[in-house]
């Protein structure tokens, strides 16, 4: 294996500034939407006292989950000693931090009182998983930041492993915390399950890998740097394995619900009668987000096409957003079972029937703005510092390839 060289991208081309301009514009629209929402109050959004968390949370939680998954590539290199992934470790860490920051910005800007962020960071109720998440998020940025520093600074090489292990363990705890936000909610039939943390971890592997593949492809295509099939095939295969694992967890979750009589209502709602949520589940989450990507990455013909692998990654991201929408908003749209054994026939507070929600443009803009901020951070990151190897062709990344060549 040749010594890997890293170099900043030039970042002066028209293409670069066009990309930065578009991302900047989307981010600005997102921030403008947040400003409008905070100023007018949340009544201008689709959120209500019935559907409490809306589209911003779909994007925020998705980005936070994807962030920890994006660190996977770096962990494969450091913790599991897969040398082939080590050249990608820097980009993996950068992407992880960027996605988390993008998600957190959306989450914070949707708070009723974002100006009280300092309260959230200084006043803790340690029984709350949300409070723990505040620590886990900031800790993730700090630990991954140090890990990144040790990857880039050869003089700190002896601590590189320790930092890699710390980041790996931390990211698992972080996604456990994110899943537990839902798993710990006893009140709602869709949540209240210990499967949420491990399911979110598996989902994070898939979503993070999809983001990583897209960013890697874009960066190497647009800068004209070589990217060999060896590394692409490994990433492609891992994407398929992670999506299959996510599919398994999803199946177990729903089979358990179908077995428990008390959960038949919510299962019927999501799987059969839930309108938009049912459509998003089957078409968005299962077919687009799981079955088609698995078919692409494992069927002999499409799997050898970079465009198809990029398409599979895009579909996994769309499926992931569908999953968050179904989980988060579908879980709230299904009414609370306040009176078991009774049906609600009248209420001034929408206790009878499914809770309605349609996302407002402000919410969508804020959510997409979060993705744009994350991508903007990566775009400028690779311009400013040496994140990207100059060459990821097979002879550089694959030790066996080099051996054969030198033999």
């Amino acid at each position, binding site marked *: 294996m040749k010594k890997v060289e890293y170099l900043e991208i030039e970042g002066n081309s028209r293409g670069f500034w066009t990309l930065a301009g578009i991302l900047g514009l989307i981010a600005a629209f997102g921030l403008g939407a947040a400003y409008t929402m*905070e100023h*007018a*109050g*949340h*009544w201008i959004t689709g959120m*209500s*006292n*019935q559907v*409490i*968390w809306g589209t911003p949370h779909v994007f925020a939680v998705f980005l936070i989950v994807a962030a920890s998954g994006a660190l996977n590539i770096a962990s494969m290199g450091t913790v599991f000693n897969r040398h082939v992934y080590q050249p990608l470790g820097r980009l993996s860490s950068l992407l992880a931090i960027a996605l988390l920051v993008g998600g957190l910005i959306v989450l914070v800007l949707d*708070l*009723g*009182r*974002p100006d*009280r*962020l300092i*309260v*959230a960071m200084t*006043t*803790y*109720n340690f*029984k*709350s*998983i*949300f*409070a723990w*998440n*505040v620590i886990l998020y900031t800790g993730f940025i700090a630990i991954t930041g140090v890990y990144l520093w040790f990857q880039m600074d050869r003089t700190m090489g002896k601590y590189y492993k320790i930092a890699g292990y710390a980041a790996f363990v931390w990211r698992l705890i972080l996604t456990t915390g994110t899943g537990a*936000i839902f798993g*710990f*909610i*006893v*009140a*709602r039939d869709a949540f209240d399950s210990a499967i949420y943390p491990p399911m979110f971890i598996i989902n994070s592997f898939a979503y993070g890998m999809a983001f990583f593949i897209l960013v890697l492809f874009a960066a190497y295509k647009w800068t004209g740097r070589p990217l060999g099939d060896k590394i692409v095939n490994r990433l492609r295969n891992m994407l398929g394995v992670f999506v299959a694992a996510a599919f398994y967890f999803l199946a177990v979750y729903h089979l358990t619900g179908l077995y428990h009589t008390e959960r038949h209502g919510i299962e019927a709602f999501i799987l059969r009668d839930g309108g938009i949520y049912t459509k998003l589940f089957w078409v968005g989450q299962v077919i687009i987000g799981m079955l088609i990507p698995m078919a692409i990455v494992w069927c002999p013909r499409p799997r050898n096409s970079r465009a198809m692998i990029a398409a599979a990654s895009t579909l996994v991201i769309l499926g992931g957003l569908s999953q968050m929408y179904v989980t988060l908003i579908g879980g*709230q749209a299904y009414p*609370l*079972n*306040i*009176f*078991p*054994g*009774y*049906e*609600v*026939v*009248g*209420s*001034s*507070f*929408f*206790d009878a029937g499914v809770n*309605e929600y349609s996302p407002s443009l402000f919410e969508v803009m804020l959510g997409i703005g979060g993705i744009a901020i994350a991508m903007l951070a990566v775009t400028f990151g690779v311009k400013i510092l040496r994140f990207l190897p100059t060459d990821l062709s097979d002879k550089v990344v694959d030790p066996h390839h080099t051996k054969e060549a030198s033999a």
Partner: protein
Amino acid sequence: MSKQIDSTLADHPVDGARRDFIKQSAAATGAALASGVLLYTGDATAKPIDEPISARQRWGILVDTTKCADGCNDCVTACGKENGWSNVEHDPRPKTDAQWIRTVEIRNKLTGSEHSLPLMCQHCENPPCADVCPTGASFRREDGIVLVDKHICIGCRYCMMACPYKARSFVHEAIENQIPYAPRGKGTVESCTMCVHRVDDDRDPACVEACNHKALVFGDLKDPNSEISKQMRTHTTKELRADLGLNTGVRYKGL
């Protein structure tokens, strides 16, 4: 004479052991009496304003659904007026306007029996809203009343996700003409306070006072002589979602 007495005293030296016994007995009797007095003062009345809230009381409300009249909304109207949440300046927006208490009509799926009842914060002993609140803004007072500290609520709404009774409202827009004893704030979460300002003033909550059908009884669940305790001893009452083990302060009779 005095000399004689003195000599008598001198002839009979003080019995130290007996004196100590009397002292100790007096002290023990005093302590026993004092504790009795303390127990007595801890009766159903609210605490004096200069004393901290204590767990000697557990405030609760008993809803008698057999007395709750169909179509009656007096408790809701009274609460809205008392706490100011119904004085909205804008056109009504039912989905986002706050409702601290609402009337719900339910029908038993098996028997078809119908009930009308008020639903508000159930003031749980183990409130999920307080468990999940990241800053501790949602909290339970020692006397069982669950409140929101508006100064440290960041408006994350996790408490609303966690409440099994949908008892909480998020303030979706700016508020004017607030009532001083019931402060509210745009971007924060709020719910029934059991009219804590009235309770601390030894008065019944507004909903209880307004109920002409005597369907609501307020009182101290820890005082065996309170009306609420007596009724709960003699009648079967229910807590909503008892399966969650929250031990609610609001109970329902007739369900």
